[in-house]
């Protein structure tokens, strides 16, 4: 941001604000203080990204990051309309965690029946209670040096979620994390999710916002550690109000023989940036990444993914599909690295897009860098329009133009939606997509 007021840039003001509060923000914990200091130092070199920032060049962040928004006060949780939770996207049979503007809500979360071997709490509580797993892992996956939103989140967050699934535990019910943006400010939400050796669970995270939240920006950073032989399915559904913004960074490390599958469905908010970075940090592990994005009006949805093969005999499959309508914009930037030691890697990446209007835009950039010689890799990208022959065929049987388009797009999306592991959520998502035409 280039605007300067009283000689200080917005980034400087933001830094000064949090630097002066570092004692209270560190909760008296020396390790945590070191992490905050590192983040402050990193952010002071980067600042908020401007349009010249290569990685954020397509995003207009000024509306969200400004003097009014950046010094957030904690939202008043009592005024929140709890009707938000009466939503078909909310699973009934799940352990429910509600984060309001990044703050763990004890009243709206429902962890009844949670087995002993699963630890779920407010992240602030975990830190102040000196939880060893939380303190050991926090900040180890999300590198503050690499991204201004990781560093600004790390220096500023006040709370979030800590979850630790202990060794060999298999969770029967899914965990649903509901992020609610309630006020028009720049809020920071932090999550640390540790799945220990041979554990298994499903997580659904749902991003919602209160309908009066205006130009709110939620900067979420999640660190997910998939332990040896652990099995995690991670579904993200983004359905915030059209005025909201979301920067959602997910850093995943998968250890030896671990399995991680993620489905990201983006329909809501005015601006969404997903940074999904997956490190295959041990041999014989598997990562599956699926995404569906469908911006309409003037929405801008940006998916940046990175799959980093560092060890041999791992597999990654990535399929992202988009439908872009009206004057909306989508960005897909997918990197796959296959490092020198990652022999016998199978890595597949594909990005497909349908443009529904002459004014819709897609910027797609699949990238593959291979330094090993014994690998099977492919990547590709395609962009087209709805097949007029298919549309005509359906219409010639008495199906209206709108319904024909809706049927075809639902079928197109189903290749992603079918990967959502929960039937009720899958049906709700399919319904929302079919109504988008």
């Amino acid at each position, binding site marked *: 941001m280039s605007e300067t007021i009283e000689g200080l840039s917005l980034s400087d003001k933001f830094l000064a604000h949090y630097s002066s509060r570092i004692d209270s923000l560190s909760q008296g914990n020396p390790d945590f203080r070191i992490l905050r200091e590192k983040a402050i130092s990193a952010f002071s070199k980067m600042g908020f990204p401007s349009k010249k920032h290569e990685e954020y060049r397509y995003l207009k962040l000024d509306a969200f990051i400004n003097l009014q928004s950046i010094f957030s006060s904690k939202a008043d949780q009592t005024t929140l309309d709890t009707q938000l939770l009466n939503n078909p996207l909310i699973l009934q049979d799940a352990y429910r965690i509600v984060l309001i503007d990044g703050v763990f809500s004890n009243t709206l979360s429902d962890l009844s029946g949670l087995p002993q071997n699963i630890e779920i709490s407010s992240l602030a509580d975990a830190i102040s209670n000196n939880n060893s797993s939380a303190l050991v892992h926090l900040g180890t996956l999300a590198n503050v040096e690499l991204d201004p939103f990781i560093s600004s989140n790390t220096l500023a967050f006040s709370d979030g979620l800590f979850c630790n699934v202990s060794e060999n535990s298999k969770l029967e019910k899914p965990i649903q994390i509901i992020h609610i943006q309630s006020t028009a400010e720049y809020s920071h939400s932090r999550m640390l999710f540790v799945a220990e050796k041979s554990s298994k669970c499903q997580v659904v995270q749902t991003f919602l916002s209160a309908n009066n939240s205006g130009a709110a920006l939620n900067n979420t950073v999640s660190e997910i550690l998939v332990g040896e032989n652990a099995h995690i399915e991670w579904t993200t559904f983004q359905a915030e109000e059209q005025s909201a913004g979301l920067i959602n960074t997910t850093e995943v490390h998968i250890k030896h023989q671990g399995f991680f599958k993620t489905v990201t469905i983006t329909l809501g908010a005015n601006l969404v940036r997903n940074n999904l970075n997956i490190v295959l940090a041990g041999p014989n592990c598997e990562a599956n990444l699926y995404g569906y994005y469908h911006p309409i009006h003037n929405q801008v949805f940006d998916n940046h993914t990175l799959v980093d093969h560092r060890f041999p005999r791992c597999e990654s499959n990535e399929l992202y599909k988009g439908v872009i309508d009206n004057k909306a914009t989508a960005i897909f930037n997918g990197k796959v690295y296959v490092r020198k030691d990652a022999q016998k890697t199978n890595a597949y990446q594909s990005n497909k897009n349908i443009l529904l209007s002459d004014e819709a835009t897609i910027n797609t950039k699949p990238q593959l860098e291979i330094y090993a010689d014994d690998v099977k890799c492919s990547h590709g990208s395609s962009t087209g329009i709805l097949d007029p022959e298919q549309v*005509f065929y*359906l219409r010639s049987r008495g199906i209206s133009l709108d319904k024909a388009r809706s049927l075809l797009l639902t079928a197109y999306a*189903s290749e992603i939606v079918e990967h959502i592991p929960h039937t009720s959520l899958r049906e709700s998502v399919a319904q929302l997509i079919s109504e988008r035409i």
Partner: protein
Amino acid sequence: MLSIRNLFAGIEDKEILKGFNLEVKAGEVHAIMGPNGSGKSTLASVLAGREEYQVRSGEIIFEGKDLLEMPPEDRAREGIFLAFQYPVEIPGVSITNFLKTAIAEQREYKGLPPIEPKEFLQMMKEKKAIVEIDTNLTNRSVNEGFSGGEKKRNEIFQMAMLDPKLAILDETDSGLDIDALRIVANGVTHLKTPNNACIVITHYQRLLDYIVPDFVHVMYEGRIVKSGGKELALELEEKGYDWIKKELAI
């Protein structure tokens, strides 16, 4: 039922139908034959409402209504059915879901209540028997990975389900072996009633051994140049299209 008068139509700058006339009454089967490029498939496309074709002049009246004013879906809802020469594959849309949607929309247009699921399933079962389609096929995506014969049988199956007033079969016999041809033709014959009509567009006479036409029309350069009874098809088969050209001195 259908009245086409002095129709001029084409695609882009190319005029293909040049003064085409045809009258079809309920209960009739009309065969339209003609050499490649005579405009047979253009006629089918114009009737079904393919948007890339432009009608320059003339009219098409179907059951007293101006067909050219209607979008393709309304033509279907009024009772026009086109069996495609090249049915398109639609991955991800099952035949069952597709037909359920089509029937729901057609019934809504006609002011009829939605079909009961049980009734729909019963109807599927009955109509599948007509074209010897097995159940697995209808659970699959529309035409995806179907053989040529399966695609054409699926067209006639849809025709049976939608029960049109006027069916237009666009070279439904092309690419069929003799068994598939028999199944398809028997299906069409089975669906024939005194209240509906059929236009069979074909290049060859062999389909007309099974679907016996009341009238045979020969199309050449965008219009009908000769009409007759079913014997005209046999004569054409024997003498070839050059005979017509010579006879008419064109």
